[in-house]
C-alpha cells in the first residue's frame, strides 16, 4: 500500500461550520429534558415533594416507578436509569423533567425537595476497602507466572513503591447530548455517541415487554475519548422514556458543568509494585497489586481492570510475575472508559518502578529499559509469544536518536548541578516504553462477532456499512482509503452509510482501538468478495475494468451485497480464569522521550519537547495518524501535570474549563512524531491499533523527566506544582 495522506473526508464541512452535530439538528416540537440529582453520596430517599406554588402543568416528570426494566444494560446491569429507593453517588439521577425551555426546567428544579436518610458513604478507595462490603468488589483478577515467592526471597535487590494516578475528565468539546424522536411505536434515538449498538442493546432491554422498537443513530460526534462509550446508554434511556411518555421529541443536552461533574471519568488507581532485580538491573520478578477506584456501579470496570492487568508488565521480559487487580466500588459517580482504558494507570506504575530501580541502582534509566525490553520470541507473563509485528526496538532506536537523548542526559545532569540555581530552572529528560493491546481483551472479539457489510450499487459506487463512528479519529476517511486502495475507486464513489442501527450491521463498538484493525480488515474481506463476484479477484484491473465488470454483473443480478463476520485466528486463545493465552491478538508499541523544565519559583513543569515513535503496523492515513499521536500526547501531558479533578466527600468540586485545567496552545511542547511499521498479518495492509497508545506512554515519559530533574522518582500524577514543591522542598505543599 502506498503512503496515504489524504485530506479527511469531513474536513471541509467541519471548517465551514456546515457539519451537523446533534444540537444543530432541526427537531420540530421538541421539549428539553433536565435531570434532578442526588445531593448525597449514599442515602435512602425518604421523600420527594413538589412545591405547589409552581405550575407543574408546565413540566412532565418521570421517576423510577415509571420504569419497569430500570437497569442500564452494560455488563452487570446494576445501574438504574433512575434511583428508586437508594442513591449511591452525588449526582445520581432521581427524576427526569421535560419542559419547553431551560428557564422552566431551572425554576422547576428549585421547587423540588428531596429528603434523605443518610447512610455511610465510602467515597475514596481507602474508605471503601475499610468498609469492605460484600458488594464492594466489582472484579478481581489474578495473573501469576513463574516462581514469585522463591525469586523474591532469593533476590539481592528489591525495589518497591506505591504509585497513584488521579481522575481524568474527557473534556470533549461537544458536551453530552442525545435526542429521542417518537414515531408511532418506534422511537428514533440519535446523538453524540461511540457505540450505537451498545445503546441499541440497552434500549432493547429497557423496552422489553412493550410494543416499542428503538433504532439508534450516531450523529457526528465532537470528541469522545471513551466518555461516550457507555454513558450514552444511560441518557438515551432517559430521552427515550420521556419521548415514550409524552409523545414528543426530547432533547437532553448537558451543559459543561453538569458534564464535568456527573459523567464518567478515568478510574483513579493505587498500585503497589515490587520488583526483584539482579546486580545488572535485569528484572527477575514483578509483584503488583492494582486497585481501581470504580465509582458506584459496575459499568465497564471489569474490562478496564482486565486491560490494566494485561498492560501492567509493560514492554519488559519478566520471568516471574504476579499481578493482582481489584476494581473497587466507591460512592462516587461511576468511572468509565477513557483512552487507554486501564493501561495508562498500570503502565505508569511499571515505568516508574523501573525509574526507581534506575535511581536506586544508579544506572541510567534508559539502559535498564533497553536491557529489559522484550526481544522477539520472548513470552509475556500470559504466555503470549511476541513473535510477530514487534517494532518496539526500532521505535526505541529512533527515539533515542531523534531526541539526542543520551547526549542530553549528560548535558542536563551537568546543567542541574551547575546552572540551575542561577536560572532558577531544573531540566529533565525522560523516556517511556509503552504498549497497547489491540482490539478487545481476550475473547471479546469472538463474543462480539463483529459484522461489516458492503454493497456494490448498480452505478458502480460502493456503500460501506459499519456501526463504527466518526468522533474525530478519522475512521470514515480510513475506511475510504482501505476500500479505495483495494477496489481502485475514487473517494466520491465510496459512500459511508449512516451509522443507524436499522441500516448497518453490528460491527462492534468504536473502542479498544479496533475500528481500523478489526473492522477495516472485514471491509478488506468484503472488497475481496466483491472482486470475486466481478471476476476481478487476483487480477490487475483499472477503474474502467471495475465499472465495466459492474455493468456486466448487473445484467444478470439485482444486487451485490456482501458481509463478513470477525473471528480471531484459531491460535488466539485466552483463559479468563488463569489469564493465560493471548490477552490481545497483537500489541502496538511506542517509545517516548520528554524534555521538561521545572521553574523553581512557581514549581510549574513545562514540557519543552516531546519525541514519540509509534509502531502501528501500518498507518492507513499518515497525516491523520500523526494527528492522533499528537492529540494523545497532549492529553497524556494533561494527565501527567495539569488535570487535577478535585473530589471532596464524593462531590466533584471542579465546575468547568476554568478550574479543570487542560493544555492550551501555549502549553504544548515542540513535538516530533515518527511512525514505524511492523505489519500485523491480520490487519488491513498490516495495520493494528493506534487510537489509544499515544496517551498511554506520554505521562510516564513526563514523569520520568520530572524524576530526572528532581533526583527522585515521581510516584503520583498529576504532578501539579503543589506536588512538585512537596517533592523538592520535602514539606507538604499539597492538599
Amino acid at each position: 500500500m502506498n503512503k496515504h495522506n489524504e485530506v479527511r473526508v469531513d474536513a471541509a464541512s467541519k471548517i465551514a461550520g456546515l457539519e451537523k452535530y446533534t444540537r444543530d439538528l432541526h427537531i420540530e416540537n421538541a421539549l428539553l429534558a433536565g435531570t434532578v440529582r442526588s445531593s448525597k453520596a449514599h442515602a435512602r430517599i425518604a421523600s420527594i415533594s413538589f412545591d405547589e406554588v409552581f405550575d407543574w402543568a408546565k413540566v412532565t416528570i418521570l421517576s423510577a416507578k415509571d420504569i419497569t426494566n430500570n437497569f442500564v444494560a452494560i455488563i452487570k446491569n446494576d445501574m438504574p436509569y433512575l434511583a428508586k429507593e437508594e442513591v449511591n453517588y452525588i449526582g445520581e439521577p432521581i427524576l427526569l423533567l421535560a419542559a419547553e425551555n431551560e428557564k422552566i426546567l431551572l425554576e422547576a428544579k428549585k421547587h423540588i425537595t428531596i429528603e434523605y436518610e443518610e447512610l455511610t458513604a465510602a467515597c475514596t478507595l481507602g474508605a471503601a476497602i475499610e468498609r469492605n462490603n460484600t458488594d464492594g468488589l466489582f472484579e478481581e483478577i489474578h495473573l501469576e507466572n513463574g516462581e514469585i515467592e522463591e525469586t523474591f526471597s532469593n533476590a539481592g535487590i528489591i525495589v518497591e513503591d506505591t504509585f497513584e494516578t488521579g481522575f481524568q475528565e474527557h473534556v470533549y468539546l461537544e458536551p453530552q447530548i442525545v435526542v429521542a424522536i417518537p414515531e408511532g411505536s418506534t422511537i428514533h434515538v440519535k446523538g453524540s455517541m461511540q457505540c450505537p449498538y451498545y445503546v441499541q442493546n440497552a434500549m432493547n432491554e429497557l423496552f422489553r415487554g412493550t410494543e416499542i422498537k428503538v433504532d439508534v443513530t450516531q450523529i457526528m460526534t465532537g470528541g469522545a475519548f471513551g466518555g461516550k462509550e457507555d454513558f450514552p446508554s444511560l441518557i438515551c434511556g432517559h430521552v427515550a422514556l420521556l419521548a415514550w411518555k409524552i409523545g414528543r421529541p426530547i432533547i437532553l443536552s448537558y451543559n459543561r458543568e453538569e458534564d464535568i461533574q456527573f459523567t464518567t471519568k478515568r478510574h483513579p488507581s493505587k498500585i503497589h509494585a515490587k520488583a526483584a532485580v539482579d546486580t545488572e538491573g535485569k528484572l527477575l520478578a514483578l509483584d503488583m497489586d492494582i486497585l481501581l477506584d470504580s465509582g458506584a456501579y459496575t459499568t465497564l470496570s471489569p474490562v478496564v481492570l482486565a486491560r490494566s492487568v494485561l498492560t501492567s508488565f509493560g514492554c519488559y521480559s519478566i520471568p516471574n510475575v504476579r499481578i493482582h487487580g481489584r476494581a473497587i466500588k466507591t460512592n462516587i459517580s461511576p468511572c468509565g472508559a477513557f483512552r487507554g482504558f486501564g493501561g495508562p494507570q498500570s503502565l505508569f506504575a511499571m515505568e516508574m518502578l523501573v525509574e526507581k530501580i534506575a535511581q536506586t541502582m544508579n544506572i541510567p534509566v534508559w539502559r535498564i529499559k533497553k536491557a529489559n525490553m522484550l526481544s522477539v520470541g520472548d513470552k509475556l507473563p500470559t504466555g503470549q509469544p511476541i513473535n510477530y509485528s514487534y517494532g518496539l526496538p526500532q521505535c526505541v532506536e529512533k527515539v533515542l536518536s531523534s531526541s539526542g537523548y543520551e547526549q542530553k542526559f549528560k548535558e542536563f545532569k551537568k546543567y542541574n548541578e551547575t546552572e540551575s540555581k542561577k536560572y532558577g530552572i531544573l531540566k529533565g529528560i525522560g523516556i517511556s516504553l509503552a504498549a497497547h493491546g489491540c482490539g478487545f481483551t481476550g475473547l471479546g472479539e469472538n463474543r462480539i462477532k463483529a459484522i461489516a457489510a458492503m454493497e456494490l450499487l448498480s452505478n458502480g459506487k460502493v456503500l460501506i456499512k459499519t456501526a463504527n463512528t466518526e468522533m474525530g479519529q478519522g475512521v470514515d476517511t480510513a475506511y475510504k482509503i482501505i476500500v479505495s486502495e483495494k477496489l481502485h475507486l475514487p473517494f466520491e464513489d465510496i459512500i459511508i452509510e449512516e451509522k443507524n442501527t436499522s441500516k448497518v450491521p453490528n460491527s462492534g463498538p468504536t473502542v479498544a482501538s479496533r475500528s481500523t484493525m478489526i473492522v477495516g480488515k472485514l471491509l478488506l474481506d468484503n472488497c475481496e468478495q466483491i472482486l470475486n463476484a466481478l471476476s476481478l479477484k487476483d487480477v490487475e484491473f483499472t477503474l474502467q475494468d471495475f465499472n465495466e465488470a459492474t455493468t456486466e454483473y448487473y445484467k444478470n443480478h439485482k444486487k451485490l451485497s456482501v458481509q463478513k463476520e470477525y473471528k480471531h485466528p484459531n491460535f488466539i486463545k485466552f483463559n479468563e480464569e488463569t489469564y493465560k493465552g493471548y490477552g490481545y491478538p497483537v500489541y502496538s508499541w511506542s517509545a517516548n522521550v520528554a524534555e521538561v523544565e521545572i521553574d523553581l519559583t512557581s514549581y510549574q513543569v513545562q514540557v519543552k519537547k516531546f519525541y514519540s515513535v509509534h509502531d502501528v503496523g501500518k498507518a492507513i492515513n499518515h497525516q491523520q495518524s500523526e494527528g492522533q499521536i499528537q492529540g494523545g500526547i497532549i492529553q497524556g501531558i494533561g494527565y501527567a501535570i495539569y488535570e487535577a479533578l478535585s473530589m471532596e466527600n464524593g462531590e466533584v468540586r471542579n465546575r468547568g474549563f476554568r478550574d479543570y485545567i487542560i493544555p492550551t496552545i501555549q502549553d504544548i511542547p515542540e513535538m516530533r512524531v515518527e511512525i514505524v511499521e511492523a505489519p500485523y498479518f491480520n490487519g488491513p495492509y498490516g495495520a493494528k491499533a493506534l487510537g489509544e497508545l499515544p496517551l498511554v506512554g506520554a505521562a510516564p515519559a513526563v514523569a520520568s523527566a520530572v524524576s530526572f530533574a528532581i533526583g527522585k522518582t515521581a510516584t503520583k500524577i498529576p504532578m501539579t506544582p503543589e506536588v512538585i514543591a512537596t517533592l523538592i522542598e520535602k514539606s507538604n505543599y499539597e492538599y
Partner: protein
Amino acid sequence: MNIDLNVNGKPVSVEAEPLDRLLDIIRDTLELTGTKEGCGEGECGACTVFMNNKLVNSCLVPVMHLHNAEIVTIDGMRDFDFFRLISKSYEDNGAVQCGFCTPGFIMSTIELLRKSHGKSVTDDEIKDAFAGNICRCTGYDKIIKAVRHLLTMNITIPERFYE
C-alpha cells in the same frame, strides 16, 4: 425587547430578553448552527464570532448590547475568497479532527491574518492569537502548521466583512 442588528450582511430583527445570549440568537433564532457552544462561560472559544469587527465569545454577549451590532459568524465567512484559502490550509495540514472547535479557530485565524497583514509574526504571537481557543483532539500542532502556512501567503482580509 426588540433588537435590530446585522448578521452576515443581512438586517435582522429579533424579540428577546435583555440577558439572552447572542449565541442563542445566532443558533436558535437565526438557525445559523456553524457557531458552537462548548462551555457557555467564555473559556473554550467554540462560540467565537465577530461583533462590530472584533472577536468575541458570543455566549457572553447579551442581547441588550446588540443594538445595530454587526455580527459575522462562520456561516458568513464561507463565500469569501480568503475563506477558501484558509479552508485549504487547514484541510491540507490535517488541522481538523472532531471539528467542534474548528469554526472558533477559523474566526481567530481570520483575525490574525487581518491584523498581521504585511508583518512577520512570531510563534509566540500565533499562540497569543489562539489563547482563547481550546482543542482537545489535535494537540494544536497541525493547527499552528496550517496558520504558519497561511501567514506566508500574504492573504488580504477586508477591514470590514460586510458593508
